[in-house]
């Protein structure tokens, strides 16, 4: 039996369902992310686990106990909010110790636990500061320590990094994962940032319009998307509208240039299908055993470790990523160019 079981949860706020038949089993010490655009129901799902919303249908089981209708202050879950939500009238130490004080733990025990937590977030000397004296990143660390101080059964994080600068965001992301693995705490993490979800999680749940699109490990989600939504939401995706030439051999044509795919092709000869390709699967130049298409360089963006090239292929444009090397000769804008990609990299979807 899973540690945290969300069984067929549904919730609506009067309109269409905000969450529709959400069904997920989370193991102990697992890190699961809910990933999706705003309004996809990920936050509502998290809030149902926290107890701030009551599901219309379905049950929530924690370690075998039904907590569906338990008030939030009895669930013993730690929650971290996007807006930090530190109590402005309390020092860092008082914030971290708040949950223990509410639980009427002895004072020396609280002091010890607060110290331990401040050590965990690497802010051992800032206990007597007030929240307004801290940076956003520090405040969120304190919020994390506060949530963890009560040794919660599950840690819930609602877009905790969204309000931070890019650099702090990456740093804190690493910290969150380190702390989670150190404490082996079951974690449910809500984000709209695919990079966060992919880099942090053991499993990712991609959501759209209230329902689950796909559940899987980060690499499964990225490399083997089940639905067009997952494919386009996670990572960058090139889409080419092609004509079916030969269903059996997987032959398609784009602008009269014929190429092959290993993916199963549905549809009859002459039908239009959409071929999807990841930018890193495409290369410049013609490689044997790979498909080739010709086009013209439209834009070259230098991003440090990679170089992103936009290529016009008639009606469509595609982007492809080159790994940067000192020896790399950057393509010039306006140049004719050949792009190649292996047949197994294509993913084919029938036109609706």
């Amino acid at each position, binding site marked *: 039996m899973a540690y945290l079981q969300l069984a067929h949860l549904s919730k609506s706020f009067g309109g269409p369902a905000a969450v529709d038949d959400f069904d997920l089993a989370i193991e102990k010490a697992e890190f699961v992310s809910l990933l999706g655009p705003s309004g996809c129901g990920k936050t509502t799902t998290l809030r149902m686990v926290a*107890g701030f919303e009551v599901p219309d249908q379905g049950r929530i089981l924690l370690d075998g106990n039904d907590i569906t209708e338990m008030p*939030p202050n009895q*669930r013993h879950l730690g*929650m971290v909010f996007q807006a930090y939500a530190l109590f402005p009238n309390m020092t860092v130490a008082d914030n971290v110790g*708040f949950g223990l004080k509410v639980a009427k733990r002895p004072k020396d025990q609280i002091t010890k636990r607060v110290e331990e937590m401040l050590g965990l977030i690497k802010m051992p000397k800032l206990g007597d500061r007030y929240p*307004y004296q801290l940076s956003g990143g520090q405040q969120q660390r304190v*919020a994390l320590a506060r949530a963890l101080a009560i040794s919660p059964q599950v840690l*819930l994080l609602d877009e905790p990094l969204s309000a931070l600068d890019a650099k702090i965001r990456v740093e804190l992301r690493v910290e969150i994962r380190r702390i989670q693995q150190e404490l082996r705490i079951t974690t449910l993490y809500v984000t709209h940032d695919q990079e966060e979800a992919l880099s942090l999680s053991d499993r990712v749940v991609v959501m759209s319009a209230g329902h689950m699109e796909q559940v899987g490990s980060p690499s499964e989600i990225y490399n083997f998307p089940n639905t067009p939504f997952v494919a386009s939401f996670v990572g960058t995706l090139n889409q080419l509208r092609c004509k079916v030439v030969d269903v059996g051999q997987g032959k398609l044509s784009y602008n009269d240039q014929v190429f092959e795919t290993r993916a199963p092709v549905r549809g009859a000869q002459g039908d239009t299908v959409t071929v999807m390709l990841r930018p890193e699967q495409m290369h410049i130049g013609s490689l044997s055993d790979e498909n080739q298409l010709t086009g013209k360089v439209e834009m070259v963006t230098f991003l440090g470790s990679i170089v992103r090239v936009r290529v016009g292929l008639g009606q469509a444009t595609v982007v492809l990523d080159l790994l940067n090397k000192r020896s790399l000769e950057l393509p010039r804008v306006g140049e004719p160019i050949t792009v190649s990609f292996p047949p197994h990299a294509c993913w084919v979807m029938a036109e609706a």
Partner: protein
Amino acid sequence: MKETRRASVWAWLWFILGMLYFFIPLVATFEFSLRMLKGRYTFEAYRVAFTDPRFLQSFGYSLLWATLTIIFSMLLVVPTAYWVHLRLPKVRPWVEFVTLMPFVVPAVVLIFGLIRLYGHPPLVLTSTPILLIVGYTVLSLPYMFRSVDSGLRAIDVRTLTEAAQSLGAGWPTILGQVIFPNLRVGILSGVFLTFAIVMGEFTFAALLSWPAFGPYIEEIGSMRAYTPQAVSVLSFAVTWLSIGLIQWVGRGSGAQTQVAGTR
């Protein structure tokens, strides 16, 4: 450049006119209160006022009414405003409208209504100070509600509440340890305004026949010449002290706003 300079000249002109309108009667009252002894300025009128036992007695009563009103209106307004912010944001304009009623309904009308309703069985309250306190609470509602409301708008009520809940806190703890302390400035400005209003109020106390500072000023005003002016000046001083205290508690806390100002 020229435009703004001209605008600032006009602004100053109106400001000075306004201040004159406000201060000339005050200065005149003060000046008059010093002329009790012919031919020289003395504080004789103030000495007389302070030595009148009824002065201290009525002032003491007003202090008591003010304290009770403050406690009652705090217990009424803070949880109400908090709940409206947290759960019933759509109701906020209506609550605000209700709190503005004392500006629309004159105190006399309000007190006659209360006396008619509670002056005879089944519920006779005219013999207790309850009506007085309730009436004062209503009078102070616009100030108390707005002060607390602007304080609530300055903090993220919902998230703070949820954070406290997730840490195991129940409602009394949330209100007492999270919401009240963070509304300190808002609540205190409401408190001082309420204090100033109750200290000078006349209609309620007079019509309900309770001793208070307002009726006392009125009474001696019809009997003596100089002492009432002195007492009026003292009454103004109490009000100004309250406003000064609002400014003082509000200083430095940039995140919070005071009194009825919008942000």
